[in-house]
């Protein structure tokens, strides 16, 4: 086994692990906002890790994989943000929230009108 392959496999393993953790988070976490944390970050990390591993094991595709990683990096937070915003506008309740500045702001603007 070449060293690249070993590192690659480790990265692959890490990727799969983080993906799995992200999914567990999706199941376990109490509300949509916290789940977005899990999927948006953990799964993205898992994917990027997978990409890195594959890039090592398949050097001819490395460039493509880098571009792909960039893409993920650009799109992942946007998707998370959009889903969170949609959830909030839908009025999805925040499980166990200790503080909500946004709700306060909304009340304030409603009062102004």
């Amino acid at each position, binding site marked *: *086994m070449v060293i690249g*392959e070993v590192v690659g*496999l480790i990265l*692959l*393993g890490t*990727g*799969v692990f983080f*993906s*799995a953790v*992200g*999914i*567990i988070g*999706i*199941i376990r976490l109490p509300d*949509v906002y916290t*789940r*977005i944390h899990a*999927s948006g970050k953990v*799964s*993205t990390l*898992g*994917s990027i890790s*997978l*990409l890195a591993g*594959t890039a090592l*094991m*398949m050097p*001819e*595709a490395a460039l*493509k*994989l880098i*571009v*792909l990683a960039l*893409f*993920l990096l650009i*799109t*992942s937070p*946007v*998707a*998370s943000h*959009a*889903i*969170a*915003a*949609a*959830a909030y*506008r*839908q009025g*999805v309740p925040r499980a166990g929230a200790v503080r909500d500045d946004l709700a306060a702001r909304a009340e304030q603007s409603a009062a102004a009108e």
Partner: protein
Amino acid sequence: MSDAANMLVQAALTVMVILLLPCAYRVLSGPTPADRLQATDTITTLLIGIIILLALLQGSSFVIDISLALAAFGLVATLAVARYLAEGRVF
């Protein structure tokens, strides 16, 4: 790629595919539309990983093109649904 590596990659692939199931559970069970949307988005992310592992297994780098397209445009559907949820319209 050695046989052992091949087996490990296959195992990784299998785990990734099986991970789709809990994700799909979230899509189906919700409870809120946003939950489902977020789970759908995660399925796209998982698929990207699956495609890459498949490319690795099949030794054909061109398969990665598929995940490129998926990465670029999974966003479109997510944004469209999110906007629909938020504003009741798409554009």
